[in-house]
């Protein structure tokens, strides 16, 4: 066990896999000598050699295409996309190729690749350094999508992602790299030191994809969240004094539907929270699923608290961010019914 922030935990996951599996390669923009703009790959090239960890041309489509080819050969490449906002040039390779390869080849070929990308807002990055595009990928069958909310999970989930035989999108809430963040930007920043999820084993361990975690048990309503919003939801639960159950989905595809159903059937109320824009976001899928499967248990409408349906505006970061005030207001609305 060691104290790690999320960057260190991710670094440790890559380190463990590079050390343990010669088929694992890591590449992406600036990940080699420099160690990545968020330092997630720091020291890895030095430790494992430049044939294992290297800089890629700024060509996200090519990076993913090359990873698919490597995967078809039998390797397990891990690609870092410098920001999730820059994943779109690779969209065709991800959607038409990685996601389809196993299916269209009748199982002859597969794409055991992991695409990591720092993701989400909270750092004044504006619309091109703050996006949360998970909803898009959730609509593409054949892909798995993982979003950790803390160092312990981040490492265990990344190891599972790399070991997975299907293509995995691994979105890292960049605002959580250094510490948990509950949306109270006016308060001093908190580090992972002292947080229970900041205690991370140094060796290999895996957290299965598709299993949610109960971040907070409660009986009054269920909050479905992932990534940064887990911390916001926890803060809102405390601040409203409502006994909310906060479910950290961790993987949105495959989804832990059993955990969701069990919780909502228990509480009879449900709130969905994500940072991505609202319309067509993954919250819609969650709302639809809960409604379909728990209709007769529901005592109030399922509400969504999300980013507004606008690009992420740089200077109005905190007016945009779905923070504890907005989540708290929604909790009260759901409880009032």
């Amino acid at each position, binding site marked *: 066990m060691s104290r790690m922030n999320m960057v260190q935990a991710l670094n440790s996951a890559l380190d463990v896999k590079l050390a343990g599996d010669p088929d694992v390669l890591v590449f992406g923009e600036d990940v080699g000598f420099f160690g990545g703009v968020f330092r997630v790959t720091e020291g890895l090239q030095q430790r494992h050699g430049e044939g294992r960890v290297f800089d890629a041309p700024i060509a996200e489509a090519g990076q993913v295409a090359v990873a698919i080819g490597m995967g078809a*050969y039998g390797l397990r490449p891990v690609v870092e996309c410098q920001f999730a906002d820059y994943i779109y040039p690779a969209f065709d390779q991800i959607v038409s190729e990685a996601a389809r390869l196993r299916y269209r080849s009748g199982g002859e070929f597969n794409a055991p690749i992991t695409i990591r990308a720092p993701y989400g807002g909270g750092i004044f990055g504006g619309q091109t350094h703050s996006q949360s595009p998970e909803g898009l990928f959730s609509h593409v*069958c*054949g892909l798995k999508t993982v979003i950790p909310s803390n160092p312990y999970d981040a490492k265990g989930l990344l190891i599972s992602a790399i070991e997975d035989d299907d293509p995995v999108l691994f979105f890292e809430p960049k605002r959580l790299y250094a510490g948990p963040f509950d949306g109270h930007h006016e308060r001093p920043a908190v580090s992972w030191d002292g947080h229970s999820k900041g205690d991370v084993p140094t060796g290999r361990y895996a957290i299965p994809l598709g299993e949610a975690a109960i971040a907070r048990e409660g009986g009054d309503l269920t909050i479905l969240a992932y990534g940064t919003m887990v911390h916001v939801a926890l803060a809102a639960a405390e601040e409203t004094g409502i006994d909310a159950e906060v479910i950290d989905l961790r993987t949105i595809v495959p989804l832990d539907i059993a955990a969701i159903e069990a919780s909502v059937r228990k509480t009879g109320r449900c709130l969905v929270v994500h940072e991505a824009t609202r319309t067509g976001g993954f919250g819609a899928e969650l709302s639809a699923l809960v409604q379909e499967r728990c209709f007769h248990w529901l005592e109030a409408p399922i509400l969504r608290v999300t980013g507004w349906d606008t690009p992420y505006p740089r200077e109005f970061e905190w007016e945009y961010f779905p923070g504890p005030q907005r989540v708290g207001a929604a909790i009260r609305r759901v409880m009032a019914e």
Partner: protein
Amino acid sequence: MDGEGTLRLHIPGARFRPGDRPDFSYLRLPPAGAAPRPPVDAPAIATRDLAFGLVRTLDDDGVAVGEWNPGLGADELVRGLRTMALVRAFDERMFRAQRQGKTPFYMKCTGEEAVATAQTYALRPDDMCFATYRQQAILVARGTPLDEMMGQIYANALDPTKGRQLPVMYTAKSRGYFSQSGNLATQFPQAVGWAMASAYRRDTRIASGWIGDGASAEGDFHQALVFASVHRAPVVLNLVNNQWAISSAQSVAGGEESTFASRAIGYGIPGVRVDGNDYLAVFAASRWAAERARSNHGPTLIEHFTYRAAPHSTSDDPARYRAGDEWERWPLGDPIARLKLHLVRAGAWDDGRHSAMLRAVEADVAEADARAQALGVHGDGPHHDPLTMFDDVYKDMPWNLREQRDELAALPGRAT
């Protein structure tokens, strides 16, 4: 604003359209044997002229001349001739099968058989090919049973894509043939990735990537060349310039402004332009590129200059957009006829043997077809069970797919 000194938008088009009389005299076709053959370890810079010339070995009399003559034995050449004829017969039969409703779709490679056939024989059998829909000759040259290929086209129980893919979208891992994609150009950088993996593993196998003149306009073409260049990947990158992309002439992809082979220059990669209807030239250029790749001299881009004699696909009628007799007037001829002439002139072949061979390949195709059809055709099984459509989305089936499979299973007739 329409006067002197104003800008004009250039709109490229086809040289000839229905009603025109095609005249290919504008093509500058250097004589066979003219191109020098640089050594396999020549720096890219020393190969630049190859991108603007045309590697040709067979002269008008069918004699192989010049440095690129690969010096293949008669047996090898007859094998190539037979494979090309087999591919052509296969294409004819499957095209007819579509007209008979046994498959919804088919695509022929008529006129371009030499390209994939000669390259396949220039590669090793375990080199990995990332092909498009017009390289069926790779599979045929590697001895894939024809009824297996037809199974894919008929979507019957033999179909390795389990009825999922459009006809001609083959997959054949054991034959070094990567799962084909319907999305143009995507396989080109994937081939580079496979080659990089092979190099990373210190393997000896190389990759070949394939793209059309039209598809080379996609960003993936550039992605492939960037990564191949930067990592000196052991890959042969083939661009088949068959003059057409459905109804659009190669000029719409930039082919009139420079050669496609010359796209390689800016990446420090040799670009070789080859007469794609000259079996020996394609073999020689492919072997040169393969040797380069295998000896760590990196990638090569080969532009195969050929002509799409066939319609784009069974969905299309070229009479609507191109002059009727272009193929007859195409100055580089028919690859089968040219190789036959060469063998005949060399005394290794004659009309009798040729006719017998043609009859034999047609019989092979007919027999394979009978076997394949016995296993079902489009719309008329036995097919894979429709419930297999939920397999292979993921390695393990998640709950939503299990639920959906059960829902379909419970529907009367499993139909919509």
